[in-house]
Every structure is written in structure tokens, then in C-alpha cells.
């Protein structure tokens, strides 16, 4: 349904993801429905003395066979590799490898991807080697000598946050509007919302959207450990991510990418594409409260959910399933619960919601795109994934989070939430496609 007759309808025609639970669409979906955990030890670097020593790594993934010309992407960092892998799947899933699309400038990309991993060893060698203990500062001449010799130009450039976007453009020949936003853990939800807006306005026919990110590197883990945001259940990594459980102690870092192919309905129908779902609503807000904490009543999340529902012309009564941000931090889960209660009122307790972060960890900038894919597959198959490790109910978190077991149910309409450090809140409304 489209309550705004002047704007174009936006449909999803292709999906792809690279996640800690695998990198093939149906296999990952089966793992999620089976309640499997993709969490294990950190292997990218030696984390054996870190407060947190586990994460959700992407495993056994090779992007090279998936691209047209590997030389175009030689030397890419993991975030870009994940993005390319997910996008290649989505492109194929949409049948665009077969059909092609008309006119490069009618194809755009909007990603919410994170920065690339820093060359930690060279960086530390330069920093520590140039440390002037008595002056308590880095001698920049000594720093330059090590850094210029050790760091690789291409590897440094690849860290820029627009590089996944740039490589996707080269791979798929996109010449239309291309952008990357980085609003922390809300980024790829925002990207999908903005990509849908471009399609609605008729600026483009097809958009590749989603996000890719990894913060599983020494300074990433350091930063989140210092914020005491990460779980430190080193002895039980697979049950450490336990959103909404009373004994949750922080989130678990994951990594990967989620990519969707979005099209105007007219374009998708003209080429006979299989339509997987429709994106009908997008809401975005800022907490504008504090840099560290969410507003205690969740005013930002409330505003984003209401804006998305209004945008879709829907009411809370229409929503069958909520993909919650559900990070497994104390603050997020209780504040998000409060916000859902504020928006859904008496219906809050009867709308099932779940967090796949319990199984794959938190993919940071890429989380929202992966969760949007979860919503679309839930609509397709009539089943929603569980929130695993939910064994100790928290009185502050008393909604139906689909604990521990996937649930068969008819899903026609989903609401998906993501929130970022710093107070960005984004919500999407994703519906079963209906010709009417």
C-alpha cells in the first residue's frame, strides 16, 4: 500500500550477506532459525590478555571468486571484501547479472559502511618508536621515518569510509548518486532509508544499499572495552550475547556486511524481477541528549518509530514483528523496551520481537542491513528467528522477545530499529509486497 500516490513504490529484489554465521543467504538464515551462535575466539590479532577475547568473526570467506575482475580490488580491507561479497550475492539474487540495468546514472549506491582496519603493527611501531618519554610526546620527524617506510599507500587509502562504496561502484558500474553515511550502529538502516528516498523521488531506478564493517582489531576492541560496552564472558562466548536477559553484560562484536538491491516497483516489474518485499517507511531522529547515554525514556527511538510508521501510513496495530536493536547492553535493551512500550502502548507485549545479535554479535555499521534482510526472510517464510541466551527474564525487559526458539507465524509487516552511539536512531517499515 502506498498512501502517497505521488511517490514511487520501493521494492527489494535482491539480498546478500556475509556474517559470522556464514556467507550464503539460505545457510545463514537456517543457522539463525536453528538458534546457532557464530561467536568464538578473536583470531585476527592476539587478544589473549584483553578484557574481551571473543567475537563473531567472518570465517573462510574469499571474495575473489565473486567479482568480475579481482585486480580492480586487490589490496582491499575486510570491510570492503565483505561488502563486495554481499553485493555480488544480492546482484545475482536480483537477477541483475542476467538482465543488466539501463544507464549507469540510473544506478546508485548508498551504504552505511565503516572505516577500514588500521595497519596496527606499522602504526604502533611508528608511534612507540617516536615516543619522546621526557617530553611526553611523539617526535613527528622520527614518526615519519618509520611510518613512511612501513605503511603502504594503498592500504592507508583503503581505510577511508567511502572505499567499500567506491569498489562497489567499480564492480557494478554505478554512475548515479553514490554516498556513504557513518552514523555508528545505525548507519546501514539510515543508508537503506535514504536509498529508498532517492528511489521514491524518481532520481534513480536501482539502488544498491546496506553496509559493511568490522571493528574487530586491537584499537576497536580497546575502545569498546574502555567504554565497558563489551561482554567479558570469556569462558562462555557462545552464550555471552544475551539481549534482554537480566544477566546481560554487554554486546559482542561481530563483523560482516548486508546488502540489498532496491528498485522502483515500475522498474522491477518491467524486467520481471521477483519482488521480495516493499520498503514503505523510514524514520530518523537524534537523541540530542548526551554523547554517552541514551535518553532515559528513549525519546529518540520513540520519535524514529513514530516517524517511520507515519511515513508508511501504518499504525502499530499493523506491525507483526519487530527486529529490535537489542545489543545485550544493559542500557540499550531496557531503554529500547521502554520506547517500544511508549509507541505500541497496550499492544507492546503481544508483538514478537527478536535480536539476531544474540547469534551473530553486533555488526556495528552493518547491523541494520543484516537485520533488514532478516525481516524480509521472515515475511517470505512465515517464521521469525529467536533471541537466544534469554534465560533470566529482566523485569525491565518484559516484552515477547521470541526466547530461544524460532517461531512460525504469519509476518506481513516488520519494524526494524537501530541506534548508534551518539544518539542517532533509525527505523524502517518493511512489508510483504502486495500488488494493490
Amino acid at each position, binding site marked *: 500500500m502506498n498512501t502517497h500516490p505521488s511517490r514511487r513504490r520501493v521494492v527489494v529484489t535482491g539480498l546478500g550477506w556475509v556474517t559470522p554465521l556464514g556467507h550464503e543467504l539460505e545457510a545463514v538464515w537456517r543457522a539463525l532459525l536453528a538458534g546457532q551462535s557464530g561467536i568464538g575466539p578473536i583470531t585476527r590479532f592476539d587478544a589473549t590478555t584483553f578484557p574481551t577475547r571473543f567475537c563473531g568473526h567472518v570465517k573462510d570467506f574469499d571474495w575473489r571468486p565473486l567479482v568480475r575482475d579481482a585486480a580492480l580490488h586487490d589490496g582491499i580491507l575486510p570491510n570492503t571484501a565483505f561488502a563486495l561479497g554481499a553485493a555480488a550475492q544480492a546482484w545475482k539474487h536480483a537477477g541483475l547479472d542476467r538482465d543488466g540495468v539501463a544507464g549507469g546514472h540510473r544506478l546508485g549506491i548508498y551504504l552505511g559502511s565503516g572505516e577500514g582496519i588500521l595497519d596496527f603493527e606499522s602504526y604502533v611501531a611508528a608511534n612507540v618508536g617516536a615516543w619522546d618519554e621526557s617530553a611526553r610526546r*611523539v617526535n613527528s*620527524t622520527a614518526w*615519519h621515518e618509520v611510518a613512511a617506510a612501513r605503511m603502504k*599507500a594503498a592500504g592507508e587509502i583503503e581505510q*577511508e569510509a567511502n572505499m567499500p562504496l567506491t569498489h562497489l561502484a567499480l564492480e557494478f558500474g554505478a554512475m*548515479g548518486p553514490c554516498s556513504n553515511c*557513518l552514523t555508528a550502529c545505525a548507519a546501514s538502516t539510515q543508508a537503506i532509508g535514504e536509498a529508498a528516498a532517492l528511489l521514491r523521488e524518481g532520481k534513480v531506478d536501482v539502488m544498491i544499499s546496506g553496509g559493511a564493517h568490522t571493528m574487530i582489531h586491537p584499537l576497536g576492541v580497546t575502545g*569498546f572495552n574502555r567504554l565497558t560496552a563489551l561482554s567479558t564472558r570469556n569462558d562462555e562466548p557462545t552464550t555471552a550475547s544475551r539481549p534482554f536477559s537480566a544477566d546481560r553484560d554487554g554486546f559482542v562484536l561481530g563483523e560482516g556486511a548486508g546488502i540489498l538491491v532496491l528498485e522502483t516497483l515500475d522498474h522491477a516489474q518491467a524486467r520481471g524481477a521477483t519482488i521480495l518485499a516493499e520498503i514503505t517507511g523510514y524514520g530518523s531522529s*537524534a*537523541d540530542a541528549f548526551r554523547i554517552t547515554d541514551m535518553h532515559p525514556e528513549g525519546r529518540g527511538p520513540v520519535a524514529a518509530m513514530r516517524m517511520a510508521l507515519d511515513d508508511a501510513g501504518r499504525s502499530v496495530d499493523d506491525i507483526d514483528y519487530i527486529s529490535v536493536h537489542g545489543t545485550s547492553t544493559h542500557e540499550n535493551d531496557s531503554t529500547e523496551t521502554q520506547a517500544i512500550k511508549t509507541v505500541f502502548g497496550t499492544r507492546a507485549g503481544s508483538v514478537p520481537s527478536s535480536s539476531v545479535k544474540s547469534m551473530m554479535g553486533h555488526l556495528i555499521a552493518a547491523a541494520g542491513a543484516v537485520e533488514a534482510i532478516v525481516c524480509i526472510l521472515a515475511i517470505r517464510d512465515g517464521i521469525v528467528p529467536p533471541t537466544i541466551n534469554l534465560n533470566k527474564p529482566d523485569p525491565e525487559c518484559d516484552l515477547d522477545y521470541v526466547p530461544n526458539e524460532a517461531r512460525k507465524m504469519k509476518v506481513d509487516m516488520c519494524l526494524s530499529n537501530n541506534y548508534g552511539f551518539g544518539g542517532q536512531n533509525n527505523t524502517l517499515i518493511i512489508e510483504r509486497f502486495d500488488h494493490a
Partner: protein
Amino acid sequence: MSLRDVVISGIGPVCGQGLGASALWQGLLDGRGRFGPIRAFDASAFASPFASEVPEDFKLRDYVPKSYRKAAKVMARDIELAVAGAQLAAQDAGVLTRARIDLEGIADRAPQYESPRMGAQIGAGLIASDLDELTSALAGARDQAGQFDIHLWGERGINDLTPLWLLKYLPNMLACHVTILHDAQGPSNTITCGEVSALHSVGEATRLIGRGAVDLCFCGGMESKINPMSHLRQIFTGRLLEASADIDPATALRPFDRKAAGSIAGEGGAILILEALETFERRRQEQTSLQAYARIKGYAATQTLNPKTRNLTPDSEGTAIAMAIRLALEDARIAPEDVDLVIPFGAGHPAYDSAERNALASAFGSALPELRICPIRPMVGLCGAGTGGLDLCAAVLALHHQAQPAVINCDEPLTDLNVASGPSRPAKIEHVLVLGTALGGQNAAIVLSRP
């Protein structure tokens, strides 16, 4: 271009020329580049030791209320400059926001917009950690041989970092602090697309206001790459002039000149206030002296495909830049000959300059030799995500003052370009075209018109 018309009502430029609209305009009129040896650190060993830095007398406390001083301690330089730019822009727009009320101590006054009707779309870069701060912690994790030991780091070194360390460096923290200070609770986005970030931000903010999601938006972009890590990365891109110490940086950045040899780093950018024309007009009924600077008439974004350099430079024809120009003019519903002034990207790098020249030639055809082109890179440098913000300010000020900025450092222009050095002069300016190109190939074109 949108359902609702959008105006620029205030600008907050921050750059080597100083802070605020009048400092920038004076620099553009005088045609003076403010470059020198890098002050922030000893860059004498770097291949490009010069930059245009924000003047030393910049004090963050002039721009944040006392109640916010604690949070100011977790601001990277990029964030500080953005906070200053937003405060300046709000003052310049004559719009009362929470931050102005707090800073100016006028608690009896109320903000003019409701919080949810104000948003932020701010361009940001990859923010480098403060080397001294991080290394003082890293140095504590050295073994007896003086080598960094990651085991010692995990065990105890990390505790020497301030708990909020990570939050200084997330790119979305520019918008985060700005939205907190001004109590802007509407949509908030952070665009990270290199040098076009600010142009994309303004383009997207225009669409956001156009579709009614907000009435006012803080937008633009801000960045400082003037630290060893970011500066080295810029040198690695091959776009900066490799300069020996005896070069005069004030004349070495030469956009569209046949002797162009590379760009020079700058720092800063601008925050702009965009408002829906209808809500601006409502405000103007009470503040009769208000004047909008410009209307945002057209915007287009395109992507370069240049597999030869993996998009690190545009293709020689500037194909996608030309496409952006055509689409922006179409969006603005004006013809090429209606454009009175171009503020180009004008990097002063031969590959970028010739691609931009060819794109202009393709889009403007026979109208090109008459069209005045005023690159401002020689006055402010290449400012990362802030670049387009300053370029938009130059366009806004040219419209407002009905004058072309001075052009410097172009003695032998590329064919058919009206870009030879010359003083600023009065001119009838109805429409200005602003262009940008990012490392990675994202392009934007924006048409600004008299309000």
C-alpha cells in the same frame, strides 16, 4: 528540485582565513592564500610540509556554553571546529537555538524552532587519534627490550586511555555534539564521502527539508587532517604538492594553471543553516532585517568510473563530473548560459584539473569561455570533508555581495577557461554552480541562486 523551497540562511565557515563569514569573504576579496609551514606538528620531514590552518587564536570556549565544557574534553579537533561552525552559522542566520541561548546567557528567550523540526546532516572524515594521547598509553605497554607488547597492552596498557577515548574519533560525533548543543532532535546523518561530503550533506539536507521531515538543518562538513597520520595519508594519495622548503606556498597551489603540480592541505570547512523557505519567511515577519543568502536550486550526485586508477583520480574526460553538472542544471531548470559563476573543485592537481576542465567544456560548450570560474583552493587549501562547505560559502557570499572573488595563481589557464588571475570585482550574479569530486570518485554539483 523539491516539494518545498529551501534557503541558506546562515553560514559558519572555519578555515585558515579565520572564523565566520566576514573573515572568509575578506580573504576571497583580497585573494590572499594563508599557508605556511604546518604549525600543529613539526612537518619538516614530510613531503608536503605546508598547510592552511585555522588561526591560533581559535578558542573552543568562545563557542560552547559553560555547562558543556566537560563534554568539550572529548572532542577531536574536527568536532571542535564543527561546533564552532554551527554556533557561528546559527548566529549568522539570526536563529535562536538552545546553544545560542545557553552561550549568550539569554535564558528568558525561547528557541525559534521546535526540537524535532531541526535536523543535522554533517560531512566528516576519518578522524585520526591524537598521537600523543594514544602513544603515552601505548608506550606503557613496552617490554624490557622497549618493544610494544600486545599482551602488556591488553593486560594493563589500555587502562591508561581515557574511558571515552573512542567517542572522540567516531565521525558521527560532529553531528552528535551539534545536535546536543542546539537541541536538534530531528533526523541526523553523517556523510563520509571524502571531499564531496559537505556537498552531499547539503544536497541531502535540501531533500530532507523539501520532503517535510524537518524545517531547519545544520549541514555542511568539517575536517582537520593536520596531524601526522592524516597528513601522511593525504600525501599517499598523490594529490598534495611535494614541496621543498624554498617553495612559496602562497603561490604554489595553482588550479587550472598549466604549471599546476598538486594541492596543499587546509583545515576546516563550514556548517550552514538551511531552512524551508516557508518557515524562514514566518521567522522574517518578526525579524524584518533578515535576509536569506541563497536558494538551493539544483543538486546532483554522480559516480566516476575510472578503473585505471581505481577511482583515485577522475577519468580524463571527467565524464561523471559533466553528468553531475547537466543533472544539477536540469534539476534547477536553468540553461548552461544562465550560470554566472562557477566555484569549482579546483584541486590544483593536473589530473583533477584537466578532468574538471573537460567536464565544464562538455557541459557548457560554447558558453564556457565567457563563464567566470573562481577556484578558492589557493586561499583555503584542500580541507577533506570540509572542502565543499567552504566552496558553498564562497558561492553564497558571491551571490550576497554580487561580486566575484579574486582569482590567484593562474597565469596560463587551461584552454577555454575564464580562470586567469584577476582581482575581485562586482558582477551581476543570479546563479552559481559549485562542484566537488572525492577521492574515490563521488561527484556533486549544486546550483545556488539569489533568494
